[in-house]
Structure formats: structure tokens, C-alpha cells
């Protein structure tokens, strides 16, 4: 089988300093996206564990798999989770979730925790969509714009290019800067047409990195127009898989003349983290209600 250059690494993580057995509330969030799924587990509102995997063709199964992997070596089972919130495009298909909340709300909530209260604009660059979200000081959504119709400006578009150029997707951000001079962006918006255009450039003798630079800046330009339409504020952050691609991120920053906020958290877990935060609040509400009866 040919090497799959688009295939990024799946991963899980847990905080060894936290003992979940001591926690009063264990809340979880599962974000089932079109390309990747993330799970987050929080112990009393502190991040305890997370995992990220590729979404399979069966969305309930993907939700289960990513949650299982998130709980690996923690001693936790699904039954230990007090409240689980599903989000993402597959949110209604999470069999073990107590509630489903839209990914727009969850991303805003998660980013508010990850990047701090000052965040006002969030750009979530997902596998098959791209969203610009305006957030208030409480992490609530005030407006959003979304492209989920066209692969231009999405992670899937970048995967197509990684495959075309036979370069590992995790390296292409850095590689796109290894050029003698920044080329003009590719002129086609459509990923299919950009691919033919890139093939032509390679044929003309362009090095792979230069083609990558031309595509990365076209992609940056595409999402900047979305950000401008939503009236981007200075404190902005980028989440999703593309947030890990410096080739796109730095070109977005350059075009905007702004620096994106940074975080110690993994940029891909914003949706699942927001879901888990909502889960904690909902769980406490449920308990209060039960106590009142």
C-alpha cells in the first residue's frame, strides 16, 4: 500500500497528577467531527485526559473508540462519567452522551478556557469546515460564519496537497517556509483545480516547498476573508487541526497584521473541552434539582 502522507498521528494524554477518584464531578465531552474525533475528561473542571482519533465511517463507533482511548490506563470506565456532552457533526450519534450541544457553542466555550477571557474572535479550521466565531467575555457566541460547502480552506484540502506532494502532513507547515522567496498564491480556489494548477507548477520545475507555500498562502487568504466578514477583533485564536500548521497560521497572521493568541492546551480539543465544561455545569444543575426534590 502506498504511504498515506495525509495521515496524521492519533494521540492520547492524561495528567498523572490528578486522581479522578477524589473528584466530585467527572464530566466528559466528545467532539465527533467529519474527519477527526476528540474526547476530553475533566475532574472538577480541570483537564484530566484527552484523545484524538480519525473518525471512521460509523459515527457512534468513532465516539466510543475515542472515549475508550481517552480512558486508557486511567482506570476509568464509561459508567464513572457523571455527565457526558456530545458535540460536532456526529453529536446526535454518541450513544453514551447525556446531552448534545452544537459545536459552535462548545468551541467558543472551550476556547474561552484555553485562551483566556480576552478572546473575542475564534477561527476553527476543521477537517471539512471552517468557522469564524465571535465570542463575548463570558465565552458565549455572539455571531458566527461558516464554510462547510467547499474544501478550500479546510483540513481536507491540506490533506489532498500532502498526498499530491508526498510530504507528511505534520511537516508541511515548516517546509512551506523553506523557499528562496514567497511565491504568489495559487489562483484556483477549488481544491481540485488548485491540484491541477500545482501539478503544472511542479512540471515547470517548482520545488515542492514552493508549491506548498503558494497553496498555504491561498488557504490563508481564503480564511482571512471569512474573518474580515465577521469583523475580527485583536484577541483572536485559531483552533482545529490547521492551527498546528505554522505555514497557514503565520500567513494568516501576516495578512491580518495580528498575532494569534497561544495556549498550553492542544488546539484540537477546543470543542470537546467546551462540551466537558458544559457537562460539568449541567451535572451540577441536575444534582441540585435532585436534592431539591
Amino acid at each position: 500500500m502506498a504511504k498515506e502522507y495525509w495521515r496524521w498521528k492519533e494521540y492520547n494524554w492524561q495528567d498523572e497528577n490528578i486522581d479522578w477518584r477524589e473528584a466530585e464531578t467527572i464530566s466528559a465531552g466528545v467532539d465527533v467531527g467529519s474527519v477527526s474525533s476528540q474526547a476530553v475528561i475533566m475532574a472538577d473542571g480541570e483537564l484530566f485526559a484527552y484523545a484524538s482519533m480519525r473518525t471512521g465511517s460509523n459515527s457512534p463507533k468513532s465516539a466510543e473508540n475515542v472515549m475508550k482511548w481517552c480512558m486508557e490506563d486511567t482506570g476509568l470506565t464509561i459508567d464513572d462519567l457523571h455527565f457526558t456532552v456530545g458535540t460536532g457533526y456526529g453529536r446526535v450519534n454518541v450513544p453514551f452522551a447525556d446531552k448534545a450541544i452544537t459545536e459552535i457553542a462548545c468551541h467558543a466555550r472551550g476556547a474561552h478556557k484555553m485562551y483566556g477571557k480576552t478572546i473575542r474572535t475564534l477561527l476553527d479550521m476543521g477537517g471539512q469546515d471552517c468557522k469564524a466565531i465571535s465570542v463575548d467575555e463570558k465565552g458565549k457566541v455572539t455571531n458566527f460564519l461558516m464554510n462547510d460547502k467547499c474544501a478550500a480552506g479546510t483540513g481536507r484540502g491540506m490533506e489532498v496537497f500532502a498526498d499530491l506532494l508526498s510530504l507528511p502532513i505534520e511537516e508541511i507547515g515548516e517546509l512551506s517556509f523553506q523557499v528562496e522567496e514567497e511565491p504568489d498564491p495559487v489562483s484556483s480556489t477549488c481544491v481540485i483545480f488548485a491540484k491541477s494548477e500545482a501539478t503544472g507548477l511542479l512540471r515547470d520545475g517548482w520545488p515542492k516547498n514552493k508549491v506548498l507555500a503558494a497553496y498555504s498562502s491561498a488557504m490563508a487568504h481564503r480564511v482571512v476573508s471569512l474573518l474580515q466578514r465577521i469583523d475580527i477583533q485583536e484577541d483572536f485564536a485559531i483552533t482545529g487541526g490547521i492551527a498546528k500548521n505554522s505555514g497557514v497560521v503565520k500567513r494568516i497572521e501576516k495578512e491580518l497584521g495580528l498575532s494569534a493568541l497561544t495556549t498550553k492546551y492542544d488546539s484540537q480539543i477546543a470543542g470537546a473541552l467546551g462540551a466537558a465544561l458544559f457537562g460539568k455545569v449541567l451535572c451540577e444543575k441536575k444534582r441540585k434539582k435532585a436534592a431539591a426534590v
Partner: protein
Amino acid sequence: MISVGIDVGAKNINIVVLKDTELLGKGAAPSGFEAKDNADKLLNEILEECKISREDINLITATGSGRKDIDFANKKVTDVTAVTKGAISINPNIRTIIDVGAEEGRGIRLDENGKVIDFAVNEKCAAGSGAFVESMSRALEIPITEFGPLSLESDAEIPMNAQCAVFAESEVVSLVHSSTEKKDIAKAITDAIAARISSMIRKVGFESEIAVVGGVAYNVGFIRSIQDHLDREVLIPESPEYISAFGAALMSEN
């Protein structure tokens, strides 16, 4: 008078050689990356077959998205001009032309004198062009020539959610995994492209006779779907991919 029409498309070059209005020869080759050299070579091959020398040619007219590369052409005309000229020369009753090539879709509305009233073009997005069918036939693992006939075997109506060719490819893969039959998927794809093209045609308005030209006219599944969408019969001229080149060759008439 010997005239030549060269249509340089995103994917293929089509050449027609005429003596006045009579067809002497025609041929096609991939545009490749050196469209000019490829067109030059193809023209020489066709001329050799018709036993005509290059000096005998009175006029060469180039059209298509790559026409600017053809520096040996005496004249250059737009795609709309060329395809309109070609279509109404074949059938003067044509009022609407649907031209679907490898990377472009075009709808042209004509008046009773064959004059262009309005037109719409999509060259930005692969959905609604031949490239869409090509990438779908890759995803389905069936040859592009079998795509149309296979889709005709199905009456299923499975809506494709994706408009984008890249997303549609993932959707097709999911359909294959969920054991949907290939003929039903092929039908869903031809319906999707017909929906895109017909919404473009509605923008310019349509009136019979309607001609479908360009390489995608060979896809019988697309023809059925577009007829269903417009609720009209359409005409498909012989060698539909040569209509623009034919029209360009006829430019010497003016």
C-alpha cells in the same frame, strides 16, 4: 478556402479543419503542459491525413481557456463566441447551449437570430464540470466511459449532501462502505452535477431547442438527469466535444 479551428481546453485540445464549411479532418490530444507544442503537433498530424500543407491554410482561429498560448493562430475568439457559432451552424433552431467541459460549465441563451442574449460560466468550482465526474469515477473505481451507462441502470434517488467535489469523494467512500450499490451512487452523482448545471442554466433562462455540448455530453446518465431537471428534451450533436473547434474554424466566414 481552408480554415482551422483550435479549441484549447483545460484537459484536451480539439482541432477541426474545414474547406469552406465542409469537414476535412479533426483530431484531439491532451492539452498537457505545453499546449502550444501539442496543438502544433496535432495540427500537423491532421493535415498530413487530409493531405494538405500548412501553407494551404487561409486562417487559424483559436479558442478555449488556453487560446492565448496559440501564438501561431491568426485570430482568437472567446469560448462563448466559438461554441455558439458551432452550435447554430449545425442547428439554427438552438436557443440554449449547455457546454460542460473538463474544468468549466457554461450556459448560453440565444435569440432567434443566433445572437447571444446572456450567458453564465462556472470555472471556479469543480462541482458542475467534467472534473467532478472524473474524481467520482476514481472514488467508485469504475472507468469514466462506464459511468453514464451504469447510472442508467438505477432509479434510486439518493441525495448527495456535498456540493464540493472533494467532500463528495468522501461521501461516495461512505456510501460504498455502507454497501450502497455502485449504480445507485453513480445515479446520485449524475443527479448532483445536473442539479448544479441546471441552476446555472436557470439563471440565464432556457428555451428549446437545447443543445448539450462538451465532453460531458457523452455521459448518458448526465443527459437523463439534466432532462429530468429541466423537464425538457435536449439535443446532443455528433462529436459534441468538437463544437467549439468547429465554430472557431467557421470564424473565417465573417
